[in-house]
């Protein structure tokens, strides 16, 4: 861990140094967007997708926008330095793309009232700080519907990272989707207790397949579980980005983080002077949650998946529509109501029917 920290720190220091050298004075009407990533762009997942969004700004605004980024910034004291460095070097729009950047972002924002800040997955806002996140659970509901149709053993293998609300919400949503078409589906969950360890994620997937799972779902960051699915001849879902290259015969679809439109819109707003502090939690309808092409499934399942996706986008289906009970049998969401955002954000309970104990 220490080594990793040192490496990240070095990377951050080198990158900020380079930024300081490369950046000239600010120009008022042009957008100069800076990005702070928690991981390397090469993670083929979270940070990679944010960088795709950054490139979209350059493509859409052409000469009116320049962008720069600092990758592998640890969540801690370094983050504040990196963010301040970006603000001092003439950036007028700064995206900080990890939950742990919340406090440094708000702190630096107070010192630079003319710079606009966009913080991903947080909840602290200010006059010049917006927050944004994506409703990935909507995509997991669609995946659940597909899994319910595709499974023969009626056992789904789920590789989890950590039992936090984001992941628990995903499991619940997935199973609600699966049960909507096939009430006999069971889920086996293995917690890898890591976001990123290809070998361990792959071993977890193997264990699940050995226990009879014929659908692989993951909420960890590397393509390893899906790759194991490919090698073992079962099917599964990609995570964060389209992983079809790793599993041409196994990927059914992938829940893709898609920040492009949001980033371009926010950059344009800065350009036009219409930028305001907002709180965005975008789902399939906003395009933030994107489903990779539906592959390796019969046409009727594909049609059902597309229909489900469209209905979620239109609001006809809400994955967490009541009545929903928790494992203890307590009614959590009443009939005729949908889960509130507050409830979704703090979800730390499994829905009724999941035969597993949630680690605390």
């Amino acid at each position: 861990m220490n080594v990793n920290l040192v490496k990240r720190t070095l990377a951050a220091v080198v990158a900020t140094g380079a930024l300081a050298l490369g950046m000239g004075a600010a120009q008022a009407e042009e957008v100069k967007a800076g990005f702070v990533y928690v991981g390397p762009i090469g993670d083929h997942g979270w940070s990679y997708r944010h960088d795709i969004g950054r490139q979209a700004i350059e493509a859409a605004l052409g000469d009116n926008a320049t962008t720069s980024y600092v990758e592998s910034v640890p969540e801690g004291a370094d983050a504040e330095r990196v963010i301040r460095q970006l603000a001092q070097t003439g950036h007028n729009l700064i995206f900080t793309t990890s939950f742990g950047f919340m406090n440094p972002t708000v702190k630096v924002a107070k010192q630079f009232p003319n710079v606009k800040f966009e913080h991903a997955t947080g909840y602290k806002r200010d006059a010049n700080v917006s927050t944004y996140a994506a409703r990935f659970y909507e995509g997991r509901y669609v995946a659940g519907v597909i899994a319910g149709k595709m499974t023969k053993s009626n056992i789904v293998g789920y590789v989890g990272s950590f039992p936090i609300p984001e992941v628990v919400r995903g499991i619940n949503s997935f199973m609600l989707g699966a049960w909507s078409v096939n009430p006999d589906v069971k889920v086996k969950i293995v917690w890898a207790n890591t976001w990123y360890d290809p070998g361990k994620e792959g071993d977890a997937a193997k264990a699940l397949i050995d226990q009879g799972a014929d659908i692989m779902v993951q909420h960890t960051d590397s393509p390893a579980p899906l790759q194991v699915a490919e090698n073992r001849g079962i099917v599964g879902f990609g995570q964060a980005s389209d992983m079809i290259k790793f599993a041409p015969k196994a990927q059914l679809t992938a829940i893709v983080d898609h920040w492009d439109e949001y980033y371009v819109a926010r950059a344009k707003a800065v350009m036009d002077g219409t930028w305001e502090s907002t709180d965005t939690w975008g789902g399939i309808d906003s395009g933030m949650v994107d489903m990779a092409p539906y592959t390796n499934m019969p046409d009727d399942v594909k049609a059902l998946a597309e229909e489900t996706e469209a209905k979620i986008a239109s609001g006809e289906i809400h994955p967490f529509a009541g009545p929903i009970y928790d494992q203890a049998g307590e009614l959590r969401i009443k009939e005729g109501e949908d889960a509130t955002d507050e409830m979704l954000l703090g979800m730390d309970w499994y829905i009724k029917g999941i035969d597993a104990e949630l680690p605390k």
Partner: protein
Amino acid sequence: MDWLIPLILTVITASTPLLLASTGELITEKSGVLNLGVEGMMLVGAISGFAVTATSGSAILGILAAIIAGMLMSLIFAFLTLTLMANQVATGLALTIFGVGFSALVGSGFVGFAIEPLPGLHIPLLTDIPLVGEILFGQDFLVYLSIVMVIAVGFFLSRTRGGLILKAVGDSHHSAHAIGYSVIKIRYMATMFGGAMAGLAGAYLSLSYTPMWAENMTAGRGWIALALVVFATWRPGRLLAGAYMFGLISVLQLHAQSAGVHVPSQFMSMLPYLATVIVLVIISSDRAKIRLNAPACIGQAFRPAQ
């Protein structure tokens, strides 16, 4: 018994990279050199093996590239610590940090590439034997190589003249020097053997275990390999047992979870490390035995007397 065979197969793949890397480090340490750069050498081996396999289409070339890359990394270490006499601990740590960054730099163009995993052995009849067939005759060749190497190293250390010389250099470099052995040259070779094996372990990760390249994909296995050498008290037989025990526990906890055993998953994730600590404590209780096998000059720079 249905679960047993797949479990064993998974354990073999989880243990092999640990065994490969720690076998190399064992020889390095036996010569009196402590190279903490195993993680970095593995990563550079992993990306070299992957990059060459992905561009040339030949896994054999990839594996050779990984071995050479690991050796070059260890050569940097050897030059700094043996010729320039830099501190071994600091240099080893620096080598790991360098390897993490360097492999990420080289690998940035290879993220998202997919390759075919190394093919498993298939001997008609033998591989098809029920139960044990696939375990004994269905692995890829790096698995067999890891076993052969640890046995060969055991034989080399205990049964050959070369092994005796290596141990002499590691136990008392001044005595070895006095009777005419080139301490520095022998340590160079031992260090490079360690590098080659670490490179091979990296290649196993990126070509067979999870056939892809991703930054930092070793995820700490180099450090476990280092711990295993101490855990085995520098004895190849125990190294083999230790690597497989570590692989077994780490895989068993995943199987237990998916089988629905209600034990906190955080506790299960901790188990392999807990087991390592416990075994270390048991082994260390007999200090004489450790002294018997531990290279006495480990980590010390050698300056020939005038």
